[in-house]
């Protein structure tokens, strides 16, 4: 067993994801604390290694089944990498690859997993990870003792700058495991999200609505506020999943990242996946009847006044 920290690189076949740089930054710090090095598992096109200068070593597995993310192919390839490199700790982003592979790797590689990690440190021989649970309402400090461990890390938990680096890293090639030629799944098509009627990423001000709005009819109420302000409505995921607003309005991990001058959140609890998309807004004002809602931990101003009272009052004030 080594004292290395290995990051699973996330990519779309062309570009390394921002989250990978966040993880490489974290891996460098942790590896330094343990006396090991930061390695990146690059499953897919080897030429992407040029984007991974922040790593000490890039471990590359190339195969046509890995051209883009394919769960079974990536799992087999990552297990092959782990068998050869024996890291102390594996970091994955808690986006699709981490949610999809993390727990399976934990079983096959026989290592405990800490999910949705917001902070992680080395304490002697133990790795201690802080997981966000219950929609971000509670933090759980988890001990990962032993020889190996896996953590899936929340987006934005570490600065990406610390994971970027100049120049090509050392590349170690690993032969693709035989299983890649006989998979139970294949990639049939890739579709990019449809552009919407409006682009919420360029708006200076956003009025955003969450599940607290309760019904499609009630969305109209918030739309009136948006109209008075002349800004588009954005939303949390459940509002979009319910079909009350189009996907192009979704803010968060699986939606869009926004950075307006002000973000008004009505009936949004502030789950980590939502915060990932809007935490950099210059001014955040949150309305939520639950005083313990996590949105208040990142908002600049907050109120527990009922949105059904506040929104009409605000609309009236602003239309005067």
């Amino acid at each position, binding site marked *: 067993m080594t004292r290395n920290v290995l990051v699973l690189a996330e990519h779309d076949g062309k570009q390394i994801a921002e989250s990978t740089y966040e993880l490489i930054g974290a891996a460098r710090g942790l590896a330094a604390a343990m006396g090991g090095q930061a390695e990146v598992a690059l499953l897919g096109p080897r030429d992407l290694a040029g984007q991974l200068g922040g790593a000490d070593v890039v471990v590359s597995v190339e195969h046509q089944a890995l051209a883009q993310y394919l*769960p079974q192919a990536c799992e087999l390839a990552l297990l092959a990498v782990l068998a050869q490199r024996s890291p102390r700790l594996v970091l994955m982003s808690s986006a*699709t690859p981490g949610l999809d592979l993390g*727990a399976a790797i934990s*079983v096959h590689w026989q290592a405990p997993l800490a999910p949705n990690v917001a902070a992680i440190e080395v304490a002697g021989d133990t790795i201690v990870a802080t997981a966000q649970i219950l929609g971000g309402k509670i933090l759980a400090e988890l001990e990962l003792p032993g020889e190996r461990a896996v953590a899936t890390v929340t987006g934005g938990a570490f600065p990406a700058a610390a994971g970027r680096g100049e120049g090509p890293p050392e590349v170690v090639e690993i032969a693709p495991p035989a299983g890649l030629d006989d998979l139970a799944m294949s990639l049939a098509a890739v*579709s990019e999200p449809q552009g919407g009627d409006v682009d919420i990423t360029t708006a200076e*001000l956003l009025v955003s609505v969450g599940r607290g709005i309760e019904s499609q009819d009630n969305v109209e109420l918030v739309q009136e506020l948006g109209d008075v302000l002349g800004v588009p409505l954005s939303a949390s995921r459940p509002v979009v999943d319910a079909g009350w607003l189009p996907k192009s309005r979704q803010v968060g991990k*699986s939606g*869009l990242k926004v950075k307006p001058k002000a973000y008004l959140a009505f009936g949004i609890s502030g789950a980590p996946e939502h915060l990932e998309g809007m935490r950099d807004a210059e001014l955040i004002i949150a309305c939520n009847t639950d005083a313990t809602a996590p949105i208040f931990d990142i908002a600049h101003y907050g109120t527990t006044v009922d949105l059904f009272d506040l929104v009409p009052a605000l609309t009236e*004030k602003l239309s005067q």
Partner: protein
Amino acid sequence: MRIVVPIKAVPDLVEEIELTSDETDIDREFLKFVVSEWDAQALEEALLVKDACGAEVVAVGLASDPDIDQALYTAIAKGADAAVRLTGGAADSVLTSDRAALLAGYLATEPADLVITGVQASDDLDGQLPPMLAAYLRQPHVSVVVGVVATADGVTVRQEFAGGRVHELAVRLPAVVGIQAARQAPRYAPITRIRQAMQAGGVREVAAEPAPAGQAPAVRRMYRPEQTSHAQMLTGSADDVAEAIAGLLRDRGLVKG
């Protein structure tokens, strides 16, 4: 096709969460529990597959989960063909690894062509159920899925990535799928139909032999996020708060007037 939908009861996040006195767990005693929202999505997607091609849908809960019978009867009322309450092993454990091990034991005796369950649960401490269950079953899996369609030789699933990019995958069965969102909002079960299901008593109790569970981290402590950066709270009537917010926006030149 037999589709098994494992469902979990989780704390209702609308409630205030208290910790136990040793601060290594949440205090479940006075909490209200609800079906995990992603499991509700998973059930909906399973029922959509059934509507389209006539699959058998079986909802499975762990006997130790609070109010699990209500959840199972609701599943039947929505259109599930059967429901199973599992006992055995560490059935009262909240760890995903123990739950997955028990479900794997059950599925070894009553196999499924397809397992569809929620992508995660809000109280996951040691990983998500779909990939872990698949690993115990040695089956392929796809998670963060937003649509499942049965085909001649398996299923086509739509797997979602950051920003809304979607991969369409052809998957041979058996397999495990983790649902992020169903193609439509979960259907509603009228209370009268839930009562009918309860009177008919369709939930079957099954004792399962758990598969050997994997490793889990140990909880050192639990705590609330630091309140240091907490929002400045605006109080008073709705009118007062509206005035304050309008002022904040005006100060930044974000509204006219």
